[in-house]
Every structure is written in structure tokens, then in C-alpha cells.
């Protein structure tokens, strides 16, 4: 039987209250959102907080809002809400692609975007998605709010820029006209962590050439976008030959580890193949959305 070590439990009633509780209880306090990463770690005694601060009552952080050129996602927005949102599917299909393969529907009822990003598991899908979409994390602490681009927010496996006395409260994703995106993951079975996954976001100019592109990889040891593909793709009309070239660059840029999910060469192969696939899908979706606008 897996039972967490003893701790004290308190429910936060607002963001300010959560920050005050973090401040009061100090280094051995942890915030719990959906709990589907932290509770398993506590059950295995990999995490042993003295205080657990439950933020599930912070409904003020559960929202999806198109605010001019930005989609604002509250940190307590559940995976299920993201998956079922028409705005998200329309603006950022990569989020729906990823959400469909994050854990299983029941876990998605509890898990939150904020929890996923703060856990920063190396096989976590939304970190890659947010890198690819060039999201900005809004982090609040005693000294006020900080706006952190993903590259600053996400420091590496299980590590973010959120300090012990701070809370991630919102994720902001820029909306670009003529853009589309895609995500694809290979997993051993439903709900498992990725063997490898890739995401891409593409913006097409009026003449059909690629004006902006971002590619990211999950679970293969690359904690940043595959910036190497930009020089190859930007300014070009999308073609299969370019996707092949980008796939090769992705497989060279990543740094996977051999584990029970597969050897290194297999994971590099997946980085290559999945990069090609997500670029193909993102470009065809972008072309469709551009023709929708012009027709």
C-alpha cells in the first residue's frame, strides 16, 4: 500500500491566500493542483512536503480567454477543458493533438496545465507545446508578477523558474494570423509517457511560403525548440523534401537516453519521423486556414 508520509493540509481560498500560505509554511510546503504528478510522488515518498496547499478552490484560475492577439489560459484549467474548447481547437490544434494523448480521460479531468508545466517532467507534452507556441508564463509572487517566456520559465527536467514562494497563474499564447500547428506522440500504450513526441507551429505568408516556424521535441533530451530548422524552412514554400531535411536536423539536435522505452537510435528515428509528420500536418492546416481567410 502506497501512503504518503504525514503532512498538514490546507486549502487556499485565493491566489493571495495561496502565496501567503507558501510564505508562512516555507520551503517544505508544496502546492497541489490536480495532484496526478505530486500525489504519486508523495505515495512513493519521492516527495515529502510538510504542508500541502490545495489550490483546487481557485476557480479564478480556471479560464480560457481570447484577449485580442493572445489566448490566456488560467493555470488551473483542466486538460479536459482544453481538449473540449472550440477556441483552442480552432486557434491551436497542437493543444488538442497533445491533450488527446495526455494520460487518459479520467486523469485529464483532474490534471491542469499549470501543474503540468510546473512539474516539468521531461516526457511532459504541454511543456513542448508551450515552447513551440512561444507561450509566456505569468508567475505571481510577493513582489508582484513576472512574465517569463518558456525558454526562461522551463529550466530543465523537473525544474522551472517558479520560486518556492511563487505561483504560476496564467499561460499566454500569441495568436498569429495564417498559423497552424500539430503534435504527435509515440507511446507504448494508452496513457503512458511518450517514447518520443514532436510538435510544430507554422505561419504561412500570403504567397504560401513559410514566414515563421517552431519545432519542439518531447522526451528526447532537448529542452528547447529545434531552432536549427528555421534556417532551412523560413522563406520556402513547404515541400516534402524540406520536411525530410528538418527531420534530419531534429534527429541530430536531440540527445535521447536509452531506457525501457527504447534505444537511442530508435528515439532519434522517432524525432526525425515525427518532425516530418507534424510539419506536414501543420503546413496543410495552415494552408487550409489561409484559404479560408482569403476565400
Amino acid at each position, binding site marked *: 500500500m502506497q*501512503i504518503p508520509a504525514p*503532512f498538514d*493540509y490546507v486549502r487556499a481560498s485565493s491566489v493571495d491566500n495561496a502565496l501567503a500560505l507558501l510564505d508562512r509554511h516555507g520551503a517544505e510546503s508544496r502546492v497541489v493542483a490536480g495532484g496526478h504528478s505530486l500525489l*504519486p510522488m508523495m505515495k512513493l515518498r519521492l516527495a515529502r512536503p510538510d504542508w*500541502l496547499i*490545495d489550490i483546487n478552490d481557485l476557480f479564478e484560475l480556471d479560464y480560457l480567454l481570447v484577449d485580442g492577439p493572445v489566448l490566456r489560459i488560467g493555470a488551473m484549467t483542466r486538460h479536459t477543458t482544453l481538449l473540449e474548447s472550440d477556441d483552442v481547437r480552432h486557434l491551436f490544434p497542437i493543444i488538442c493533438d497533445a491533450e488527446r494523448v495526455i494520460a487518459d480521460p479520467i*486523469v485529464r479531468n*483532474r490534471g491542469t496545465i499549470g501543474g503540468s508545466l510546473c512539474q516539468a517532467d521531461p516526457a511532459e507534452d504541454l511543456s513542448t507545446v508551450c515552447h513551440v507556441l512561444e507561450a509566456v508564463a505569468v508567475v505571481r509572487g510577493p513582489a508582484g508578477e513576472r512574465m517569463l517566456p518558456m525558454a526562461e520559465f522551463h529550466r530543465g527536467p523537473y525544474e522551472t523558474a517558479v520560486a518556492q514562494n511563487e505561483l504560476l497563474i496564467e499561460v499566454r499564447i500569441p495568436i498569429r494570423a495564417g498559423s497552424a500547428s500539430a503534435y504527435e506522440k509515440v507511446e507504448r500504450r494508452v*496513457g503512458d509517457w511518450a517514447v518520443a513526441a514532436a510538435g510544430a507551429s507554422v505561419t504561412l505568408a500570403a504567397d504560401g511560403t513559410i514566414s515563421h516556424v517552431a519545432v519542439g521535441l518531447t522526451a528526447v533530451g532537448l529542452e528547447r525548440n529545434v531552432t536549427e530548422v528555421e534556417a532551412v524552412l523560413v522563406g520556402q514554400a513547404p515541400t516534402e523534401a524540406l520536411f525530410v531535411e528538418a527531420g534530419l536536423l531534429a534527429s541530430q539536435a536531440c540527445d535521447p537516453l536509452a531506457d525501457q522505452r527504447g534505444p537511442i537510435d530508435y528515439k532519434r528515428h522517432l524525432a526525425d519521423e515525427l518532425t516530418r509528420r507534424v510539419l506536414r500536418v501543420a503546413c496543410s492546416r495552415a494552408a487550409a486556414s489561409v484559404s479560408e481567410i482569403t476565400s
Partner: protein
Amino acid sequence: MQISLTINGTFVTREIEPRVLLVHFIRDDLRLTGTHWGCDTSNCGTCVVLMDGQPVKSCTVLAAMADGHTITTVEGLANGATLDPVQQGFMEEHGLQCGFCTPGMMLTARALLDHNPHPEPLEIREAISGQICRCTGYATIVRSIQWAAEHPLVAAAETTEKEEEVRA
């Protein structure tokens, strides 16, 4: 700490340790052993209960987190002697063999049908994809849930009759 919640329509208050998981609170404190305790790692789904109408894996929710919420377990599915259509469906279509996964499967099915009364077989498979059955190969579970979708009024009609009898 003290928690209060509504379980299967009954309001209960108990003194618990904050580290108690919802599955153990339901089974050991409330003695509602219809909720099964399986893998303990939120993979198998036999511990699924409804929290405010939504399926959750109760091995990965603290009882403290359920304070103030409404829980439905398999014991709360039937209305007296009248089975929920989902329970009837599992009987009609042989949706179980050993029965270990059944409580969780039926609660997920109930939540699915509440949300989507006419699911396609693929939608049913997606809904139960976080739950493991080692006996049936899932085919009869999918058929059981389809049976329930096709017979939504059976239980309701019988309940109405029964209520009328009681009133008379």
C-alpha cells in the same frame, strides 16, 4: 482534520489524517467496499468514483480534497431495487467476468452517458481507455454501455411506477 462530504446522497462527517487517500476513506472509513483498490498508481481505474459527477481515480485524490464535494460510488448507482441502465446493461451483455474492474467501468459509463447520451462505440472506448479489464477484451463492456444508451428510460419508467405505487 475533519471533512464532510455527500456520498451517495448521504452527508457524512469524519475525522481523518490528511494523508488518507479517497479510496481508503471510502473503503475503510465508510465501509463502502464496492469501490475497488487496484494498481495504486492511477493506471488501472478500478477505484474510479464520481466526484461532482465526474470520474476520478480515487487512489490519486486525497480524502481531504473531497471535503465539501459530492461523491458517487457503485453503491449509489441503483435507485433502491431498480438498477441503473448501466448496471442492467452489464448484466444483459455480460460486461464482466471476474468483476474487479466493473465498479469503475460502470461509473465512467454513467458519467459518459450523462454527458453524451448516444456515444459511438469509439467514444465509449475512449471514455474507458484509462481503465483496465483483463477478462472481457472490452468488447462486451462496450456493448453493455451501448445497451444502457439504448435503454435510458427503462429504469426511469420503473422508478416512476414505483414512486406512484408508493404514493398510492
